[in-house]
């Protein structure tokens, strides 16, 4: 049985609709003056999103009818690497407060380059040292930015 494809506009529109409706509901606790503008914007956003949802449904029907536009549909496996990247970045930012900026950055660069299949030790070390030194000289030494210190440096 041929797998049914759904165009990404449908998913995006549903997500945006949920977001807009929740945000609109939230305006019920705002004073009238403060609520006017957000309600106007959310009304427009809902209208545009409904239109995009309608277009998305049309595209989905066309894809499943004769394959028109099937190549433009984003499939779940395509999202694996970007989502893995996002998770790595989230872990990195969480570690900054615990381990300190430079320690967390060192671990991040090592881990991310390994994830990116960079295996040359020279390259990894050069990137690691170069980035840390550059950040230190520019932001800490020159601009006096107090980067977070954690358990270590």
């Amino acid at each position, binding site marked *: 049985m041929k797998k049914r494809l759904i165009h*990404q506009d449908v998913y995006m529109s549903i997500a945006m609709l949920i977001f807009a409706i929740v945000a609109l509901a939230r305006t019920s606790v705002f004073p009238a*003056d*403060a609520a006017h*503008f957000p309600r106007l914007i959310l009304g427009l956003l809902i209208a545009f999103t409904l239109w995009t949802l309608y277009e998305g449904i049309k595209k989905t029907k066309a894809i499943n009818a004769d394959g028109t536009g099937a190549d433009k549909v984003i499939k779940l496996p395509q999202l694996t690497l970007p989502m893995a990247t996002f998770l790595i970045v989230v872990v990195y930012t969480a570690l900054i407060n615990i381990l300190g900026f430079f320690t967390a950055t060192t671990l*991040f660069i090592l881990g991310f*380059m390994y994830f*990116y299949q960079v295996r040359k030790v020279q390259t990894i070390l050069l990137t690691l040292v170069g*980035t840390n030194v550059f950040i230190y000289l520019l*932001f800490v030494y020159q*601009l006096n930015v107090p980067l977070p210190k954690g358990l270590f440096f």
Partner: protein
Amino acid sequence: MLMLINFSALAHVAERLASLEVLLALLVGVVGGIIIGALPGLSATMGVALLIPLTFGMDPVAGLTMLTAIYTSAVYGGSISAILIHTPGTPASAATALDGYQMTLQGKGLKALGVSTISSMIGGLLSAFALLLLAPPLALISLKFNAPEYFLMAVFGLTVIASLAQDSMIKGLASGCFGLLVGTVGVDIMTGFPRYTFGFSALEGGISLVPAMIGLFSLSQVMIQVEKMHEKGELVIGELKGSVLLTWQEFKSIWNTIWRSSIIGILIGILPGAGGDIASWVSYNEAKRFSKTPEKFGTGHMEGIAASEASNNAVTGGAIIPLLTLGIPGSATTAVLLGGLLIQGLLPGHELFEKHANITYAVIVGFIIANILMGLVGLAIARYVVKVSTIPSGILAPIIVVLSVVGSYAINNSMFDVYIMVVFGFIGYFMRKTGYVTAAVVLAMILGSMAEQGFRQSLVLSKGNMLAYYFSRPISIVIMVLIVLGLFSPILMKKWQNKSGIQTAATSDDN
């Protein structure tokens, strides 16, 4: 026009520019911009967004000069990889690749680089002089603005969003609405009520613009690039022979093309939303029309490169004109540049040319110098810069992420801004994958508060009869006409592009 220039401010420009900080900023901006532009996957917009945090602690002249230097140099830098490896570094150089790479294949890669460098320099210079001459009189018009005009200008600026989203206007407008909503987060100035803060005190001041921008442009780009992680393929750099300098005959043969394309670029730059990619294609087609040898276009013809490059660099100065005078960005990159202005506490409009004239004129003259420096540096290093394009993403990606984190942190020395950057990176990734416009979000965040304030003040001033009030003001009527034109111009532009067979990037997020 000459009478409206503040000559006393102009006289102090040398004083402001003759400092080590400014000269270093110029050099860093030019060299950094060329490298950023040459790297496929990075863009002028992303470069400016990433480096804005650096300008926070800098002298305003140094900071803004660096950002404008990055802008113009990155647009030029895109031509280097377009010519030598048939991969435009920025969408604005896509037309350059047509003839540029053909010249490389014929062993004339260095000559092509020379044409591109000279054309970009002259196009950028002419647009910088246009900025100097046209901006002061335009700024005077903003003196006559009151709440209704500011509201309408914000709306007009937001119609730019429609033209930024060349693929789907509705998605562009939805992106803008999202940006406007993000702009409402924080304590409402008029009522003191905290909107959408959910008890977080860090949100009471609103969502910080620069971290959001860095997330939307830079982090999202890293996530997009990682999809190609497994694609193997060596980039082959064409053999470089001969001289990068043009002979007098060669220069004469492209002079008219450079001049014509620069004018086109300046005019398109002034139009909000239309950027370097549109300008380069329009100029390429016009150059072909006016040429005595149109059949040579696409086979390695210098006029083709000259047209595209003069025009896309001429856009830069043109796009800064509405930005400085009316606060309306002329392109996606200038939308980000507006953030750089606001960080320095500078508001666009007549104040920039009166109260802060010393800074403004210094930045404009700095922009002129940046274009000259770009030409000289480009001639010297272009052939070496292309090697930077071969740096694997596995090295660039972690560096960009680290710069994004530290840049976001440095604004307020707050990890909360880093979290904002990460969240917007996630949002930006899905927006870009599904055809929404991240530049529209940034623009709306910037213009949203101006729109809301103007709207609420107009409500009070009009005593409830808004429509009659707006129609009683001549400047308001003019702006309303511009808004209608702005909404329909993408449709007309698309029809014109289809007729001329021009292909541009799906969105103008990158310039």
